[in-house]
């Protein structure tokens, strides 16, 4: 009788423990290559708007049709994408193929969790077809770790009506731009809706030859950078012709522009569908960014598909990855203009360089600076943004603010 009680207790306890433990165990071993069985490849990314999601599903459906032995499981991570991906990679539960922003790429590649792709690449895949600067953001030590799925550059968006009324031409140079912004500022409306953050100001910061990042360290307090950024601050504090979206109750540049509170904003491709959906009545045009010191420049933001180095289904993963970034897949994915193709041949075929609104964006690709600069860029950006804002709001001089931010950024980099 007694021993039976013992047994019962043991049984209950072990069942509960088994329950707890099984929650943590990983899924079964690799099923790749078995006959008649489908290989399941997981693909993780963040959600886009409904049209974008439809296009991605279309591309995946095409792929599955061509590869009946592979089943693609799409996982949409809606919030805190990088946190979720990092945590899952640490836990050994990472997706086989996933999105990786060029901004985060160097640091993640350095840890060795991303599979180098060179040995998979075939001639047919045609690597040379990619826009070179975009591809380079995912190359480290001569190894390619990802292929960019799309990109966007920055262009000048201007409100046709407001410019006509003020009798202002679309500014070609940085000086013209500042004058135009001043003329356009009246009746509670501003000339320039500006985003006071490094991601958007990087091209301005480097326009006089200064480096924001030097030898992997913050260098944005150097004279060239400070001088280059000064006009942005002056436009806000002296001319009062520039405004941050938050100051007029909007969340980002596209919204300020759509609400016609600012006549000009510097935004990317993403603003075009947004304006068409939310503010269809605004008449606007796009132009290449004004030249600073006679030189053209802009930013390019890109995202690649990368493969998890710990994946057990690498062959199938490569098939998927190469289809998504291949000529056929990319054509489907970028066909509606929500994203710009990183392959020259696809861009030509879809004719975006001829497009009235997207032409200036495509034109920028050849001279754009890619938003990616070594492993420490996230730390540098964080510190820059924090202090740049206080200078922007007029709380302190720009050079002081940036000096302090640089010191802080570099001390963080040194301690890491």
């Amino acid at each position: 009788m007694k021993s039976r009680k013992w047994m019962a207790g043991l049984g209950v306890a072990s069942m509960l423990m088994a329950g707890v433990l099984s929650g943590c165990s990983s899924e079964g071993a690799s099923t790749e290559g078995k006959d008649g069985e489908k290989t399941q490849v997981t693909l993780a990314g963040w959600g886009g708007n409904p049209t974008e999601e439809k296009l991605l599903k279309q591309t995946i459906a095409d792929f599955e049709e061509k590869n009946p032995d592979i089943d693609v499981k799409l996982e949409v991570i809606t919030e805190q994408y990088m946190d979720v991906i990092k945590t899952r990679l640490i836990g050994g539960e990472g997706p086989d193929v996933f999105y990786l922003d060029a901004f985060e790429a160097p640091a993640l590649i350095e840890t060795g969790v991303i599979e180098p792709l060179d040995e998979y690449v075939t001639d047919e895949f045609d690597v040379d077809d990619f826009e070179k600067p975009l591809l380079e953001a995912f190359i480290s030590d001569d190894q390619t770790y990802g292929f960019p799925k799309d990109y966007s550059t920055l262009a000048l968006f201007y409100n046709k009506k407001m410019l006509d009324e003020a009798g202002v031409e679309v500014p070609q140079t940085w000086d013209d731009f500042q004058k135009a912004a001043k003329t356009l500022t009246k009746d509670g409306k501003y000339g320039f809706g500006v985003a006071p953050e490094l991601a958007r100001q990087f091209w301005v910061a480097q326009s006089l030859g200064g480096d924001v990042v030097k030898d992997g360290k913050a260098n944005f307090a150097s004279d060239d950078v400070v001088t280059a950024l000064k006009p942005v601050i002056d436009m806000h504090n002296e001319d009062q012709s520039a405004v941050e979206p938050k100051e007029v109750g909007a969340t980002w540049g596209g919204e300020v522009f759509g609400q016609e509170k600012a006549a000009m904003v510097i935004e990317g491709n993403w603003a075009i569908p947004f304006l068409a959906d939310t503010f269809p009545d605004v008449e606007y045009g796009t132009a290449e960014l004004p030249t600073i010191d006679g030189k053209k420049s802009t930013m390019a933001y890109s995202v690649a598909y990368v493969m998890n180095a710990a994946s057990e289904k690498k062959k199938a993963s490569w098939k998927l990855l190469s289809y998504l970034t291949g000529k056929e897949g990319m054509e489907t994915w970028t066909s509606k203009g929500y994203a710009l193709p990183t392959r020259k041949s696809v861009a030509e075929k879809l004719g975006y360089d001829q497009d009235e609104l997207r032409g200036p964006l495509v034109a920028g690709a050849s001279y754009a600076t890619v938003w990616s600069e070594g492993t420490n860029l996230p730390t540098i950006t964080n510190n820059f943004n924090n202090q740049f804002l206080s200078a922007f709001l007029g709380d302190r001089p720009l050079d002081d603010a940036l000096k302090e931010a640089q010191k802080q950024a570099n001390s963080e980099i040194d301690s890491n």
Partner: protein
Amino acid sequence: MKSLSRRALRESGQGYLFMSPALFVLLLFIIGPIFYVIFLSFHKVQLLGGASYDFVAFDNFARILDDTRAQIALWNTFKYVVIVVPCQTILALILAATLNAGMKGQSVFRIIYFLPTLTSSAVLTLIFMWMYNKNGLINNMLDAIGLPTYNFLGDPDIALNAIMIMNIWSTAPFFMVIYLAALQDIPDSLYEAAELDGASTIQKFMKITVPHLRPVTSFVAIMGLIGTFQLFDQSYIFSGGSGGPDNSTLTVVLLVYQYAFKNLGTMGYAAALVLMLAIVILVATLIQRKFSKEESLY
């Protein structure tokens, strides 16, 4: 030890066996992580791509002393605690006292006052951000009565205060309920006696209500301290995870989050920061108890 017979041994063994699932869960999810954090705080940790742990002794703690952002975070958190805890405690006490005064429609007011507590803090923050908007409700109201308007979300001097107001408004009702329960326990005879002696309402409140509520006040203050020191979600949503504008909404927990998840390879430093916060909370709680001079059970 003589009473520890075979039978007693077996019985206690059985007891532990039945408790084992709970003990196991406790060990795995509570005790284990605490020791793991202590372990991490003495190491330089890289978790991605083949975990590596290098013993660095007290380097992580020494780094806190050099880290301006850690100091800003600590200072912000401190300001926040010092202002929010007394405000929410006093507000809760006043709300509870008015609700207990026996006026008409008391239960309706009780429900209305308690409503903010039911909203999740994330939703609450989003609603407040909308109201704090440059063209939002609060600025419109300020404008209507001729007061200056503020850029609550973008101005470093105001952003933290905006979070404070929001949090006092949302947590005070919870403590109000605790006060209400305690108020019911104060015997009416005391008030009757005071009335006979000619005490005014305010005198009754100060001389009877407040002293009798002292143990509860102490509880409310300690819970408030712990809660406010751990401020994270509001400032996270408010600043989009950055602690901006200009580090003004950076709190210790937000900084810990940034080091643990946003940077790679700084998990050890994040663990050291979190231990420091634990020590700060412990000390603050001890000081609070010393001042409240109350033998209590918590």
